[in-house]
């Protein structure tokens, strides 16, 4: 035991941090499978009637076959244990809706959502940080007032409403934006590498497809980003105002550094630490906000998949989605902590 302890503490901080967090993360995932399994059991509704037509549902033989096929005939604890056991083999079961393994479905739908959320996150960071910094520098001036209204609007406007309005205005009325979906109707998807069309088309040098993919992602990504732009702007402004008041920023000015350096290097640095934390939480919120945006823009992502699975009480699919979202949360949080430690040398991992 003592030997183990000393060996453990001999490891680099980063390794200790990763091992510990991965272990906790794995436990968390197990807990999430349990909760999501329990939830699917307690919700009223019967997968049989949700998936089979009236005639099929009234035929006991078909019902029995359906139950046997999806393991619904076994006692509930056994169902769960069976699920966990398969999970360890990378088998998430079969989706009742698509009649395909859940993993196959996820591999198809998840990249679309990751692509959309990442694009939205990039937009949110670029706009949010720039606007926040400008607002802080021009505190109480007109740029600050304008930005305050914009960011307030950003966090107040309901996403689904904004999605409908922007689609109506920019597609139907102005014709600037392309229609819904990830590509033009009949457009051929690039060879599947990551299943993110923008990246795959780039990797394979299909420039035309890349252009279409980008033009299709801009509007939904903007809509998805708006709320986060608002919150990152407000956070950046507050953090910048605080750090601009710090003694070390005054020191930087006293050293005669150009104002640009003072703001972008000295004042920004501590603000970035705060922003990373907000952005991490915002990414999680985007994954849930994506359900509405995906529906309006017919974006075949995991939000739509989860929504349809929930309607059909598709147990395996719901649990698969929950697990994947949980893993994303855990990974994002770990990344946030790592980046935070990179920004602030006073933070010690491990």
């Amino acid at each position, binding site marked *: 035991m003592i030997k183990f302890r000393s060996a453990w503490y001999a490891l680099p901080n980063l390794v200790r941090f990763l091992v510990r967090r991965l272990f906790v993360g794995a436990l968390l995932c197990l807990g999430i499978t349990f909760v999501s399994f329990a939830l699917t059991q307690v919700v009223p509704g019967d997968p049989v009637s949700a998936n089979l037509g009236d005639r099929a549902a009234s035929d006991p033989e078909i019902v029995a076959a359906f139950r046997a096929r999806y393991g619904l005939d076994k006692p509930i604890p056994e169902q769960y244990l069976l699920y966990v056991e398969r999970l360890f083999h990378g088998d998430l079961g079969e989706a009742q809706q698509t009649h395909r393994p859940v993993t196959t479905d996820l591999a198809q739908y998840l990249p679309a959502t990751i692509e959309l959320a990442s694009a939205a996150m990039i937009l949110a960071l670029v706009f949010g940080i720039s606007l926040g910094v400008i607002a802080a520098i021009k505190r109480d001036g007109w740029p600050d007032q304008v930005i305050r209204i914009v960011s307030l609007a950003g966090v107040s406007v309901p996403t689904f409403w904004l999605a409908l309005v922007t689609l109506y205005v920019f597609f139907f009325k102005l014709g600037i934006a392309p229609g819904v979906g990830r590509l033009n109707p009949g457009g051929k998807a690039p060879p599947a590498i990551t299943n993110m069309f923008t990246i795959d088309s780039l990797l394979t040098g299909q420039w035309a497809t890349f252009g279409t993919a980008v033009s299709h992602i801009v509007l939904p990504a903007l809509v998805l980003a708006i709320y986060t732009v608002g919150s990152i702007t407000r956070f950046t402004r507050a953090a910048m105002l605080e750090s601009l008041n*710090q*003694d*070390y920023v*005054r*020191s*930087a*000015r*006293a*050293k*005669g*550094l*150009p104002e640009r*350096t003072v703001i972008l*290097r*000295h004042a920004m*640095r*501590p603000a970035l*630490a705060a922003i990373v934390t907000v952005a991490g939480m915002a990414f999680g919120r985007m994954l849930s906000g994506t359900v509405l945006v995906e529906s309006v823009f017919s974006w075949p992502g995991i939000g739509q998949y989860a929504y349809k699975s929930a309607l059909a009480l598709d147990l395996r699919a719901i649990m698969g989605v929950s697990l994947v979202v949980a893993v994303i949360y855990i990974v994002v949080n770990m990344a946030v902590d790592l980046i935070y430690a990179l*920004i*602030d*040398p*006073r933070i010690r991992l491990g």
Partner: protein
Amino acid sequence: MSSQLAKPPLLSIEGLTISLPTAEGHRAEAVRGVDLAIGRGEIVGLAGESGSGKTLTALSVLGLLPGGARSGGRIFFEERDLLASGRAARAVRGSEVAMVFQDPMTALHPMLSIGRQMTEHVRFHLHLSQHAADAVAVEMLDRVRIPNPREAMTRYPHQFSGGMRQRIAIASALAAGPKLLIADEPTTALDVTVQAGILRLIEGLRRELQLSVLLITHDLGVMSALADRVYVMYAGRVVERGARSDVLALPRHPYTRGLLDALPHGSPSDHPLRALPGSPPAIGRFPVGCAFHPRCRFAEDICRADVPDLMPVAPGRVIACPIDPLMAVPA
């Protein structure tokens, strides 16, 4: 001393006024006509309680007054008027005039390495490569007696003690080779045992680098250890100026005398500590006449009516007091 003043001074502040916006939307004069000169290689002490305008005076030399502050008068640095344009102040800031602040715990950037903070302005002002700037920084860290300066460059402020951090802040301020160092309460935030080391360091750097120093402090003990000449400020005005030994041995202005009486020195039995009655007036609420009269043991009617001029009372010695308390009996 006199030889230093015979040459044109390095820094010459003439009739400096600084006004600040008040909460009620008016303006209040915080500095009211300050004249101050620093010769080359000279250490000038600027003493006074908080609110006396000593820090504002210093910040105006660097053009770093807080937002909304307005200044008048002239500040000549080697014949250039720093108040004439923002460009002039920016040109000397950090390169020819450097500043060290009170609290080394907050004055260094907590997230940037010492090396970064030691070299970024050196590179900017002296147009050096990173490598050359590193060499300058290491030499300066060595000069302020930071052990293992090369290794210290890779570390961060939180890995150093308060005294070490102040040494690093001083080294950083001096790395670009300024002629004037403004030290605003450089030892106030430090342990007494560390203070003496910092003061010795500043004294040594003055000799080695022919540095001029404007030492701002409310602590006359610090002043007596270091300064060649002393200015005492009260409510935005200079009330006494003279050679350090003269002023501290025989204070002429009642305020200076009060400050000295409040200072522990000698054996405690023969000299009871006496606190100045009252507290310094807030900016915007300076009393009319001599601003010190409400707290003055010697005050007469004339003190309540007229602002006293600075009058010479001995060679190199001026006070702003019509009642020279040396000659007067306390009321």
